[in-house]
């Protein structure tokens, strides 16, 4: 039987096992919305802005490992989605984004709501397609999911002209597709893996440095096994938190610009660095000239282009993180070489000395609420078991530093692109994926206002998110840099005319709370968490001028931190 393109679209998504589509209707996608109306397999979530649709799909993907799906209209629908697509692209998040397009015979005519979606999204997608013939639609959708979820994952955009959604074709959804020009590597080279293990065992001052690739590549269990077996110290990047239990003794915490003293010093002084699913980002390496001056480097990554991009490595291994880690464990079992236990004991002694500095300590007797204290209390009250999303800025760093993630998929933030406005919609996506779990959004009064309209979506779908607004009446990270590097000239970093967040939350139908006293923090959090079926917006009035420490200033090496 022949189906319209719109019905084919709905059938493909159902056959692909898609649960939710996050989107917003418009002229070019009306046929598709009509097809969605007539089916029950997929639930469409109506957001209030297309950027939020992409972030929600992204949050769904990050919290499950499954691809997020977005549907927006042509023109402004597509351009609004771009920030979310770029956010997913920078963090390698699997996502399939459908954009409506003007009819094929109008393309290029500057038609109403026409934009070159393929051209605009090209630099911020893994791949994109324009479907010009309804006969190609089903196979293109299959290819998009295949590309988005394999190799180094990423967003794929499919642009569908309106006439294609009305035209008819036989429906056939291929079970598998192969693309001759796309064959992502899975297993690592056995000889390289052997070489890597030999180098790892020869270390006197080893250091394991892992990133988002461990989470995306489902390698957390294997990583934990390997690192436990070796008794080596480990650090996680911002994207890699949860890849190894944060509360384990061997974990030195996050590294990089706002990483811990012990993690950064161990990086700087190590003699063998084992990098797994991490990409030597500039926020991690500091001044690249001064990075790990004495280390031989093993680098495991699924993307060959990530290897030797910023830093020269001694043993490169291209492959799926989990598969390579398992192979390493096998080699470790068979090899005769032994860990240098004496050297390792001395190394650990040194590391403990660095750790004893307690670089994350902060004033516990402050009369104003310290943002760190709120995150610490949130961790205690939620027993470290919540899904936590964040926006971008100081609160993001405090969340990463003080909420200890023992499991993968729980920490959801925009690491690469640094997108303010990400936190709330991402939390929505995570809550849809995990309806019975606690989802918290740690945010600031600047970031939250970039997608505040989504409080309406939360009401419509009854999402009981807990929003922790660290409100310091400043764009905190901008203010911090202006204090340090611009002699305190606070240009445009002051947030004036803030709304009354309690009333705002209430006007959307939610519960609002304002907390101004440190003594009330714990109680308020407990009270909010007890409201299991309500969204609670907690407005914490925090210390205005608290800074994020430690900090590595621009141009400095990892051993040149500002501590307090």
């Amino acid at each position, binding site marked *: 039987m022949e189906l319209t393109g719109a019905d084919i679209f709905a059938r493909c998504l159902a056959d692909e096992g898609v649960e939710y589509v996050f989107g917003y209707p418009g002229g070019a996608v009306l046929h598709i919305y009509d097809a969605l109306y007539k089916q029950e397999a997929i639930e469409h979530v109506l957001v209030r802005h297309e950027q939020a649709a992409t972030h929600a799909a992204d949050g769904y993907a990050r919290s499950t490992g499954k691809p997020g799906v977005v549907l927006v209209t042509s023109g402004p629908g597509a351009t609004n989605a771009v920030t979310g697509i770029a956010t997913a692209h920078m963090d390698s998040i699997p996502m399939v984004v459908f954009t409506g397009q003007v009819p094929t015979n109008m393309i290029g005519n500057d038609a109403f709501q026409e934009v070159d979606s*393929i*051209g605009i999204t*090209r*630099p911020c997608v*893994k*791949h994109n397609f*324009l479907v010009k013939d309804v006969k190609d639609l089903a196979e293109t959708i299959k290819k998009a999911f295949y*590309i988005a979820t394999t190799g180094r994952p990423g967003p794929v955009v499919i642009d569908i002209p309106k006439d294609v959604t009305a035209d008819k074709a036989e429906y056939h959804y291929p079970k598998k597709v192969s*693309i*001759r*020009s*796309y064959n992502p590597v899975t297993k690592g080279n056995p000889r390289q893996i052997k070489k890597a293990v030999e180098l790892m065992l020869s270390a006197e001052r080893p250091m394991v440095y892992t990133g988002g690739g461990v989470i995306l590549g489902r390698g957390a269990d294997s990583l934990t096994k390997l690192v436990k077996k070796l008794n080596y110290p480990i650090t996680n990047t911002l994207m890699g938190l949860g890849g190894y239990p944060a509360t384990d003794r061997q974990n030195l915490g996050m590294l990089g610009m706002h990483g811990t003293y012990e993690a950064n010093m161990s990086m700087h002084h190590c003699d063998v660095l084992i990098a797994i699913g991490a990409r030597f980002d500039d926020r991690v390496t500091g001044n690249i000239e001064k990075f790990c001056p004495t280390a031989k480097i093993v680098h495991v990554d699924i*993307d*060959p*282009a990530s290897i*030797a*991009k910023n830093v020269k490595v001694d043993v490169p291994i291209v492959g799926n993180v989990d598969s390579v880690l398992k192979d390493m464990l096998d080699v470790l079992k068979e090899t005769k070489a032994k860990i240098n236990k004496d050297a390792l004991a001395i190394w650990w002694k040194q590391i403990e000395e660095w750790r004893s500095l307690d670089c994350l300590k902060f004033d516990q007797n402050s009369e104003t609420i310290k943002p760190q204290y709120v995150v610490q209390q949130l961790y205690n009250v939620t027993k470290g078991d919540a899904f936590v999303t964040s926006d971008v800025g100081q609160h993001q760093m405090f969340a990463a530093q003080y909420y200890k993630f023992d499991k993968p998929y729980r920490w959801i933030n925009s690491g690469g692109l640094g997108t303010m406005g990400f936190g709330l919609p991402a939390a929505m996506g995570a809550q849809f994926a995990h309806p019975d779990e606690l989802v918290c959004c740690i945010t600031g009064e600047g970031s939250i206002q970039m997608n505040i309209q989504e409080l309406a979506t939360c009401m419509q779908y009854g999402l009981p998110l807990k929003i922790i607004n660290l409100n310091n009446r400043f764009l905190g990270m901008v203010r911090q840099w202006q204090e340090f590097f611009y002699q305190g000239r606070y240009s445009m970093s002051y947030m004036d005319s803030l709304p009354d967040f309690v009333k705002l939350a209430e006007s959307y139908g939610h519960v609002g709370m304002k907390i101004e006293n440190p003594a009330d923090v714990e109680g308020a959090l407990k009270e909010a968490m007890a409201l299991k079926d309500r969204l609670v917006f907690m407005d914490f009035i925090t210390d205005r001028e608290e800074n994020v420490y430690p900090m590595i200033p621009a141009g400095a090496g990892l051993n040149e931190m500002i501590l307090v």
Partner: protein
Amino acid sequence: MMRHIISILMENEAGALSRVAGLFSARGYNIESLTVAPTEDPSLSRLTLVTRGSDEIIEQITKQLNKLIEVVKLIDLTDGPHVERELMLVKVKAMGHDERAEIDRLNDIFRGNIIDVTPKTYTIELTGTGDKLDALIVAIGADKILETVRSGVSGIARGEKSLSVK
């Protein structure tokens, strides 16, 4: 900053070329010349691109190109022995007996072909390496040249090595 000739076999699809060009501009790599056309298999295009960069940059360029979904295979021709050729068409002033004879002589020396003639102009077709084409331009002299068109470099590996999907 070594000169490299990168030869790419890619899907002959709308948008594939702009992905290659976009990658170069987005990552700040330079393109000295670029030439592209379908191959004997109409589903494939062959693109030849000349660029300059350190070994590290060329390594990144080839890795990033390989990541493009539509790129099937590529080689850096300058890694081994290869032949490169470029086609140039030059329209030159050719008035009066002496001038026409001089152009004719230069054309013979460079083994070009005169492919169009008017009472006032000659059009020369010349194939060779970039150096050879440059040399003809110098020999004719800028004041006599009305226009030049160059195809950009095409290249192929010497010997039995070939870039194909088989």
